[in-house]
């Protein structure tokens, strides 16, 4: 087992190098060049200012060097082993601090940007994923149990309908009807906290002016609409997956045996069948993990939330190479790790799988 894990870990290195090389080449080949977009945000710029800016970026990030040199330099920077230049200008080979570099556009360390955006995305997903999974497992099991009946058809149709609604439309409708004074002003329209949340306590408190709902409730209150947007379309797929897995196992021999030895329908369903139906769900769970880290750009931009989705899309649009490469590296690494984890989980969950 340990040998297997080590082999898999070593295999990751060329895979990651391949991924970053591919992304790097695509960025390098994109028309307009890397620095082009840096010029537009400022709008009007005098020629001498533009020339100064181009020269500055070239000098600072080595953009005038050949592409291969630029890639190797970047690779050297992100690796924990490599060349460093000493203050005296000499090059030394050895262990060093990996450096993900600076975002061209935002002029901040990439790590800081990711550290700002990732917790927000994780928080949103931490609320969304349990809803989606618990909801679809329940629905999947019951639709399988009452196959062909009104409940099955109803849930199936409803999920299909939800799945077909575009998020962008749903988001705008939710804001229009549930965050507008013209209709129902139940929720805030954008952001993750109220303007004055800074000065509030964490938990709800009673003040002389009345109840003040506090930082935590304020945050949750702001997250209701985004979480609805992230959740509703996720049910369909997982429900169908659970339903087919449960159906398959319900008609399996061991389920009949269990029933024959006198186990109640509930026990057969939940203790025997349900557990064996979880395997495909593990597969899916591992494959959606990288997606969760990248976030949803649509939901984030509708509700003005600064998560990973917007960071990634903005980086690509602005050709912010260091940022794109670093996020690719991080998500690539996490994807490969989650695949490894999934394979290990298989071995643990299914006695037939072994890596010896």
């Amino acid at each position: 087992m340990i040998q297997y894990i080590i082999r898999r870990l070593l295999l990751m290195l060329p895979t990651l190098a391949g991924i970053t090389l591919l992304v790097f080449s695509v960025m390098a080949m994109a028309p307009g060049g890397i620095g082009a977009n840096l010029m537009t945000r400022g709008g009007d710029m005098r020629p001498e200012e533009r020339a100064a800016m181009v020269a500055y970026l070239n000098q600072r990030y080595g953009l005038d060097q050949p592409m291969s040199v630029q890639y190797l330099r970047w690779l050297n920077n992100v690796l924990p082993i490599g060349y460093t230049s000493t203050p005296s200008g000499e090059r030394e080979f050895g262990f060093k601090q990996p450096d993900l570099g600076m975002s061209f556009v935002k002029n901040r360390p990439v790590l800081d940007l990711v550290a700002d955006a990732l917790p927000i995305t994780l928080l949103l997903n931490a609320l969304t994923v349990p809803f989606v999974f618990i909801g679809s497992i329940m629905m999947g099991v019951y639709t399988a149990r009452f196959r062909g009946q009104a409940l099955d058809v109803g849930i199936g149709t409803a999920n299909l309908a939800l799945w077909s609604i575009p998020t962008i439309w749903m988001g705008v409708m939710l804001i229009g009807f549930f965050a507008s004074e013209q209709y129902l002003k139940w929720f805030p329209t954008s952001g993750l906290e109220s303007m004055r949340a800074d000065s509030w306590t964490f938990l709800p408190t009673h003040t002389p002016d009345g109840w003040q709902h506090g930082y935590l409730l304020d945050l949750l209150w702001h997250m209701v609409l985004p979480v609805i947007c992230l959740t509703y379309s996720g049910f369909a797929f997982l429900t169908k997956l659970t339903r087919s897995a449960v159906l398959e196992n319900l008609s399996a021999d061991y389920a009949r045996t269990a029933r024959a030895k006198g186990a109640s329908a509930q026990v057969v369903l939940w203790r025997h069948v349900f557990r064996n139906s979880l395997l495909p769900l593990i597969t899916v769970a591992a494959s959606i993990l990288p997606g969760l880290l990248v976030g949803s750009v649509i939901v984030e931009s509708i509700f003005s939330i600064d998560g990973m989705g917007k960071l990634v899309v903005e980086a690509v649009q602005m050709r912010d190479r260091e940022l794109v490469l670093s996020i690719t590296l991080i998500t690539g690494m996490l994807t490969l790790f989650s695949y490894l984890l999934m394979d290990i989980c298989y071995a643990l969950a299914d006695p037939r799988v072994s890596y010896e």
Partner: protein
Amino acid sequence: MGNRFGVKDLLLYLFLTAILASIWLAMVQIDRQWEFISLTEEQLEEQTKDIAEIRRRLQRGMIPSAGYQNRDDNESGLNANTKSWRGFERALQAQQQPDYAQGDWLVDYFPDNLLTLTPSISSDTYAAAVQQRVLDTLITRDPETLEWLPLVAESWQISDDGLTIRFKIRDGVTFADGEPLTAEDVAFTHRFVMDERIAAPRWRASLARITEVTAEGNEAVFRYEEPYFGTFELAGTLPILAEHFYGRYLESVEAAEEFNRSTGLLFGSGPYRLENPSAWTPDQGIVLVRNDRYWGAAQPPFERIVYKVIQNDAALLTEFRNGDIDFYRARPLDYRELKDDAEVAKRAQSFQYYDARGGYAYIAWNQLNDGTPTRFADKRVRQALTYLTDRDRITNEVMLGYATPANGPFNPLGKQLNPDLPTRQFDLDKARSLLAEAGYEDRDGDGILESAEGEPFRFKLSYPSGSDDYKRIVLLLKDLYVQAGIILEPDPLDWPLMLKALESKTYDAISLAWSSGFEIDLFQFFHSSQMATGGDNFINYASPELDALIDQARAEMDESKRMPLWHQAHEVLWEDQPYTFLMRRSRLDFVDRRIQNIQRVAAGLNSPGLWQMPTEWYVPAPMQKYQD
């Protein structure tokens, strides 16, 4: 079987996760409180210093000399001795209103995130809008007459050759922490920006014209090598940075690097300040609080100016309807609908106006593609196309009347525009005869013009993709041009491709817009020296006559002599039509009703976001909505 993972375990894990998440959130909250406490401590320290200073002065029998002394003993607020306070005249007049009151917040919005608020490394207009409220400049403009008024500078003197400008710094100007602002700080600002270690290449390039800035007593002296009409504005509108705050970033390379990476080092002497001027990050939200030590004659009315970031259009409109933001900058279609909306009319005032600094949209005709002259190199062709470009239909049909036709690069609200030049009206016959003169005729009877070589007149008009207005204008032009037998092919381009086309100058024609200022310099766009790669004369237009006029006007320091030169330059452009000037958009703003004293002025609106200008807007006490 019995000890396998069950529903109860699942609940337990969920419970544990919830607890961990709450602990994490609680830690975040504690962090915020810690920040709040350290801020309070800082403020307390500053106040203690202030009290000590006042006590010292009282013991010596000195009267505190800071600020504007004549305010109390003079009813009108101004007399002959306080001529140097003219920059505050309008704000003081606003304070004379019977319902004037301090307090309340102004809630504005930005459609995009700010990257950094640190001056000199920020590059977007949003950061500039915030910095304008926090950093002071030496002089400001009168929004009605557009003449220069003293602000931090009490008076100024320009040498006869125009190469030395001396600004006398007013006594008693202090930064937001109570430290005095001196001529040293002005000199420091220049030194700071010019330091190669600071990542301000853009600002550095624009200040390169200044040879040196020195502090001589209470005077800040700017020196130049050559006369240029913009030198006074360049010096006078330099945002003043505090040496005691920014100075430490010049001490070492690491410190400079820390500055370059900062997100919110914003500190100055303006009417508003950041609550925590050294550690702002984009996730904190943009909140400016009133600078209670503001040195000016008129104290700022709003307690806070808050900028929300709202990226989605639907959310933006909903927030405005809900009253969560005080502004809504509409597009023509929105404006027409919302203007008559009873709900909106009840809570908002609408303004349609032209900004004296508003830019213009144009079509640029490339005269030299890949080294060979294009058909647009012929003046008659460009004139004919201008005759075909029905600007009245563009402004009325596409812009719904919320734009005005442009006939040159100069703003009609400024003094540079030559008022004697008419705008060419749509004239199919004139266009046809000009094109025939230039050798374009329909030789094969298919309705399309051909050149003498039999090549049909067909060209690509590039425009920024994703802009609905441009798209509609280009489609209208296609219909108009085809009447004269010219085929226009719309060519929407993404920004990077657009910039590449401009740089390599491989395009037929491009429709874009330039932003503008009170007095603009034509050098950048139309001087033949700017045809070099990277210059903004990307149409390869060269006119020795215009070059000479531009050179003369730039070196002329006397406005009364310079304006006739700009008028002549305008005439050359009008005749040559290197661009077909399209239109100037009007600004369409909705502002919350509770905000009073919004006036139309020559420059546009007397809005607090216009430029360094003491705020004239206020909310009467009974209408105030937010309190600290």
